[in-house]
């Protein structure tokens, strides 16, 4: 019922041409993701384009952020990994259409979003890296899983591990399923409460075109999972899904766990932290963070590092 009311309210008050974007918003023409100016600080293919034989065997993890987010979402993980001297290289990709302007985001498709992940992977393989893993938060999850559904890794280096942090297959807000009907009338949807820090790193306004793209990648991945997605024999997967997350429905974890096929059952793990935070791997910039959230985040980071350091 609340969705029906929401739609009616959005229809009455939301029908507007262009959103009111300020210079304090990432959506504007002033703030951009820093990886656009300094890619070598974020991408391993840029910072270490010619690895020696030892570095080629080093674990590299490509981390992909979620819908409307930027590389900021994985900063804490990179800092944590670097602080542990685990010998793991973190490559933070900026999804296509993200971290730029509202208009560029509006014109992008989920395939554009995914292109950055593919490019970085191909660059790393070309450079000679052999031990490559992936981590995707929220929409980063289905974008990575889709690569396996397309058999993208059939004739190339197989990823070692895939980490999915609150991957979206089913949204918590079911009104997304009606975006094709009401989206063109709404034009865009404004995000809820955001901190000043979040406004610098997340788009505040969500063009209906991109919400339709989000629904598309969710639906495509769900159907692929229903048919079964076979991971390469050497690839294992870990799914982390907060139980009280208000962005992604927890049934997403069920669909991924049942739909991904690994060589052996122990190569597929699922963890359901009792947290209300969507994407526990990012706490910086949030309004309310508890000590328990920090403990959960550290546990997730430690498990990821342990899996990345394990022998192939």
């Amino acid at each position, binding site marked *: 019922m609340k969705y029906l009311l929401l739609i009616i309210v959005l229809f009455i008050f939301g029908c507007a041409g262009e959103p009111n974007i300020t210079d304090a918003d990432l959506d504007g023409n002033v703030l951009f993701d820093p990886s656009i100016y300094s890619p070598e600080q974020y991408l391993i293919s840029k910072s270490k384009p010619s690895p020696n034989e030892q570095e080629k065997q080093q674990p590299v993890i490509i981390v992909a952020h979620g819908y409307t987010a930027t590389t900021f979402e994985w900063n804490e993980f990179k800092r944590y990994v670097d602080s542990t001297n685990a010998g793991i290289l973190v490559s933070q990709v900026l999804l296509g259409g993200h971290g730029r302007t509202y208009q560029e985001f509006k014109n992008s498709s989920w395939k554009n979003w995914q292109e950055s992940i593919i490019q970085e992977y191909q660059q790393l393989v070309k450079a000679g890296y052999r031990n490559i893993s992936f981590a995707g938060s929220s929409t980063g999850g289905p974008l990575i899983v889709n690569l396996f559904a397309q058999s993208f890794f059939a004739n190339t280096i197989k990823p070692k591990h895939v980490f999915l942090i609150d991957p979206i297959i089913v949204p918590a807000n*079911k009104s997304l399923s009606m975006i094709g009907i009401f989206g063109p009338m709404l034009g865009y949807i404004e995000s809820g409460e955001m901190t000043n820090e979040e406004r610098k790193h997340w788009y505040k306004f969500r063009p209906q075109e991109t919400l339709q793209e989000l629904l598309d990648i969710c639906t495509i991945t769900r159907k692929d999972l229903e048919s079964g997605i076979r991971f390469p024999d050497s690839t294992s997967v870990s799914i982390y899904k907060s139980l009280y997350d208000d962005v992604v429905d927890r049934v997403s974890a*069920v669909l991924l766990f049942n739909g991904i096929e690994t060589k052996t059952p122990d190569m597929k793990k699922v963890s359901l932290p009792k947290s209300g935070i969507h994407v526990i791997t990012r706490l910086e910039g949030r309004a309310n963070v508890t000590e328990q959230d920090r403990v959960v985040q550290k546990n997730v980071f430690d498990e990821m590092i342990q899996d990345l350091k394990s022998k192939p």
Partner: protein
Amino acid sequence: MKLFSIFHLLCFSFSFTLLAGELSTGVRIQQSIAMYNENGITLQYSPSNFLNNQLAFGVSYVSSRLGSAFNSNAILQDNIQLHSTYLFSSSSLSPSISLNAGYCFADYESQIFEEIDASMPLLSIEAGARYAFDFPLTMQAGLGYNLITSDGSSGVGTVYPLFVQCSFLWRFGL
């Protein structure tokens, strides 16, 4: 929610106590927008001496087992619903509105997910049309809206707001 179900049950029981009417049974095909296809059976009763045969009460069972989850990894989901339908005319083609109430049960097939709700109440409204053929077949189709859906942290996440359904019913005189 419970009140609606009790209301339906009372109406259903009461209508059977009336002397004459029409019983029909058949299949129900249901497709949620951007989610599962669920199919099943439906049973409907229309008391003839009550609102000129324009009110019907029924019960239906639809499941993803007979739809999206057949031979796939989709979530096994069973829905049992009571419904009351009002026809705007007694002619063979008539617009209709329905109120449905029931329960949805999901099976996640693993104990790992025991902390995720595996059942939730259903309550929906539906608008559509009914066509009664000259021979004892009735086709009833509608666009429905689930008033209760999961918020991500409670309920069954695969219950989506909008659905379309089509039922084919064979009529029996009582």
